[in-house]
């Protein structure tokens, strides 16, 4: 994959300084808390400090209506004892409250202390993203300019665009992790997302359209070709107008071609969640016990890669302090591996893939995806479309969902067209596509040479926790998939 920018050397940054200088932490205090957390016999403990500052600016009906800022600071203390997890958090970082949280979490175990806190070794990893400063006034003025540009571009696109909302949300998340096994890591994670939402209306119909993008980037990102406010505005307007004249989506099983980029959400739902180690350790996943077996066509190779510079799903270190990596999930159709965190890698005797993530200091880490995508194949995308007699060409999606136990997944197309005799014809209304995870990718018969990642809009939910992710895919053809429309 093309890198957005080159990684910055580790030594030039010092993420932990914020916690020691601004929040008054000391190594001595971290050790005391960890020791307290292990006092009832726990085998492992970690502290997760988090300070998030987020800003949101939004233009609506031509005026800046929304301006908000949020600050969240806290610490989560976790203690592991066998398969058990004790957890407590506090939004007050005074030594008394931290020690109290540690004592609460400690009680998951019951016995004398057996483990000592190891000396800290700092995780060193390349810097995959810029460290943005706290939102300065100048930056707010810059953001407003970007939003105004999107507003104008959407309204200028067509007189049928009657409502435009444009917004930019960004956050700076600072984390510090200290664990009884000696893990010590800190990071500063920027995240920005630009969004445009429009309503189009003609004398007969009304339709919506939206577009957006971003990543772990600074504002300059939105000056790059294909990332500009005008690009997102025009995309939102174009898709809304398209829907004004859309025909009913077909119903039933047919050939489906998925376009490059965001349709990779298919992989996230069809296989990604099923390969998270916690579900497989508990044997609650339809993929449990399938390592080494054929779960997709031999043309399919899927990886999860947390090390892509600037991407929304990328992380220098995961939320347990491990460096992220590229993990092969499916290689030429064969299931190769799971995504693991500290608990599952220890209990399953597997390597840690640096996939432990959590929504915030108030939540317990779990194995999660980062950027999940299918590698490019050899087919020309135009040949793929030409090969379809009657089918659906879906290029954009709303979102998806999966039941990991029976493997059934859905994803909802927001921009799709009929394919008739190898030609892309009428746009169709939104429709949900449904399939079975361990089976669906066996029907992949063509894989394009046009791998793309999504624009940077994905948020994944699992057990009530949301984390930013990326997905990607080349154009692919599935010989069989069920399309949930109302038409013929």
């Amino acid at each position: 994959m093309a890198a957005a920018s080159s990684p910055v050397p580790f030594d030039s940054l010092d993420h932990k300084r914020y916690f020691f200088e601004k929040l008054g932490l000391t190594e001595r205090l971290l050790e005391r808390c960890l020791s307290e957390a292990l006092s009832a016999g726990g085998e492992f403990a970690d502290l997760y400090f988090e300070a998030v500052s987020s800003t949101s600016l939004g233009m609506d009906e031509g005026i800046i209506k929304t301006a908000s800022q949020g600050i969240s600071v806290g610490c989560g203390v976790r203690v592991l004892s066998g398969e058990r997890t004790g957890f407590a958090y506090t939004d007050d970082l005074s030594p008394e409250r931290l020690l109290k949280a540690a004592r609460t979490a400690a009680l998951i175990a019951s016995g004398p202390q057996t483990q000592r806190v190891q000396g800290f070794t700092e995780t060193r990893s390349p810097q995959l993203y810029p460290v943005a400063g706290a939102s300065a006034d100048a930056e707010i003025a810059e953001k407003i300019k970007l939003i105004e540009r999107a507003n104008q571009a959407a309204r200028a696109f067509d007189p049928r665009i009657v409502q435009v909302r444009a917004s930019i949300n960004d956050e700076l998340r600072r984390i510090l992790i200290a664990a009884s096994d000696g893990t010590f890591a800190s990071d500063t994670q920027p995240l920005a997302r630009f969004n445009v939402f429009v309503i189009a209306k003609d004398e007969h119909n009304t339709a919506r359209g939206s577009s957006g993008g971003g990543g772990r980037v600074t504002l300059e990102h939105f000056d790059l070709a294909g990332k500009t406010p005008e690009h997102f505005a025009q995309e939102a307007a174009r898709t809304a107008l398209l829907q004004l004249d859309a025909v009913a989506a077909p119903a039933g099983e047919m050939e489906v071609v998925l376009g490059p980029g965001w349709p990779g959400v298919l992989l996230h739902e069809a296989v990604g969640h099923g390969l998270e180690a916690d579900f497989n350790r508990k044997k609650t996943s339809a993929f449990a016990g399938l390592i080494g077996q054929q779960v997709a066509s031999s043309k399919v190779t899927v990886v999860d890669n947390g090390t892509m510079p600037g991407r929304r799903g990328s992380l220098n270190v995961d939320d347990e302090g491990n460096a992220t990596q590229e993990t092969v999930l499916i290689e030429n159709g064969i299931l190769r591996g799971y995504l693991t965190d500290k608990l599952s890698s220890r209990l399953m005797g597997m390597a840690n893939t640096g996939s432990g993530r959590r929504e915030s200091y108030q939540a317990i880490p779990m194995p999660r995806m980062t950027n999940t995508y299918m590698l490019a194949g050899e087919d020309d995308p135009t040949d793929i479309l030409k090969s379809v007699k009657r089918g659906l060409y879906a290029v954009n999606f709303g979102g998806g969902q999966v039941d990991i136990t029976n493997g059934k997944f859905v994803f909802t197309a927001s921009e799709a067209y009929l394919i008739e005799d190898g030609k892309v014809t009428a746009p169709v209304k939104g429709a949900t596509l449904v399939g079975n995870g361990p089976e669906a990718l066996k029907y992949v018969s063509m894989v394009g040479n046009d791998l793309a990642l999504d624009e940077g809009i994905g948020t994944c939910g699992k057990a009530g926790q949301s984390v930013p992710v990326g997905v990607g895919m080349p154009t692919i053809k599935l010989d069989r998939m069920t399309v949930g429309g109302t038409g013929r």
Partner: protein
Amino acid sequence: MSVKSQVSNDLELLAEEAVALALRGGATDAEAVGMEGDEFSVRVRLGQVEELTESGSRALGLRVFFEAEGGQRTASVSTSDLSRDGLESIVHAAVELAKVTGVDSFAGLPEREAFGICETDLALYFDDVDAVPPAERIEMARRCEAAAMSYDTRIQNSAGAGFDASSSRRVMVNSRGFSGGYRRSYCSFAVTPIAQDTNGSMQRDSWYSNARTPRLLESPEEVGRIAAQRALRRLGARRVPTQQCPVVFSPDVSRGLMGNLLNAADGDAIYRNASMFAGKLGEQVAGENITMVDDGTLVFERTVPATGELLRVGGFGTAPFDGDGLQTRRTVVIERGVLKELMLNTYTARKLGMQSTGKASRGLAGAPGIGGGCYYLEPGTMSAESLLAEVKNGLYVTSTMGFGTNLVTGDYSQGCSGFWIENGELAYAVEEITIAGNMKEMFRNVSAIANDLHFRGAGAVPTVRIEGMTVAGS
């Protein structure tokens, strides 16, 4: 900042202090919301405790307003750092942010006379939610899972059981004299057993009990048994051919589907033309059998299973005031299919030249959105069984998946699972199929509504049957 010198330990005083700081910073109006809560959560799997969480948190949100030529500028902030420095810096940030916003002639706090708090006791808080010792809570989750696991030999695994308890307090103070607060309690337990048939294919399903006091929780054994039955009945699910047929929605699914009647009546979507009900106030938007009510004041009378005593208890969507500080109320949004009222907060009411219907929802950050209280569809008189018995060939939907609900156009397309109905009986389980239609037509094609209205959450809708939907499958 390592040792926090908190402005005050009292949430009201903290909120008042934030408002005062904002006014001192030049704001013409300000409004603060404070929230604090305690949370207990335990996850049990295969009889063993898997996760135990115990914590408390508090945070504050603030909106500031500056009068300007032709309207107001406004900004909002939120923080969990309630130290003196933390509070001062976030108030300063709000004041600075407001300067960059545009003048909005509809922005601003409600008029003084609009504020109100429901005077009757809404029975939202029961102090015995904290009285059950952790060991007993863990035991309830264990018993629930054990009942599910022992129900049938085809259940040998579990995605776990859990018990959650929480109590929270919320206060709201503004510069126009409103000051209110309330406390709520909640507890629940649930289990998700996994059933497996001889060919190795697995199905999961869940069941739960929730209440404001542990006295009203159902028996863990009963909940475990229901969860087991729900998982088992999904085994052997197959696909069905693509066709048009009547679809029966179980209460868990119809609650979401019919809830779209209120989502489409959302004032924010209406003024933006982003709803299929835009411009339809006073018009027929559903069949004459459809009456949909949103009521933020619902209080139920429940019988305590152990003692038989009657207890008044507030609904899960009940509150004494809305996110703008207006008294909550009962609103008949759809009456016999006619769109009678909209779901409005102060801002959207002003945009539409109407009066708020007390449906403002307010988190910590941002301006109030729209959110109802308790809602329900007026039930019919027939039982769910007889409603099903009338179907010769059709689909009974017990769960849906996906995001295929478009409130602008009404287009509806969801993945689903459930049962095939043959001659009025559930014949076999089905999955990996979709149902689709257009909600504008679906709401007119409701051919039957059952009498099984049970509030298990903020909203409740009985079993409903809709004619002429498309099922896509093999």
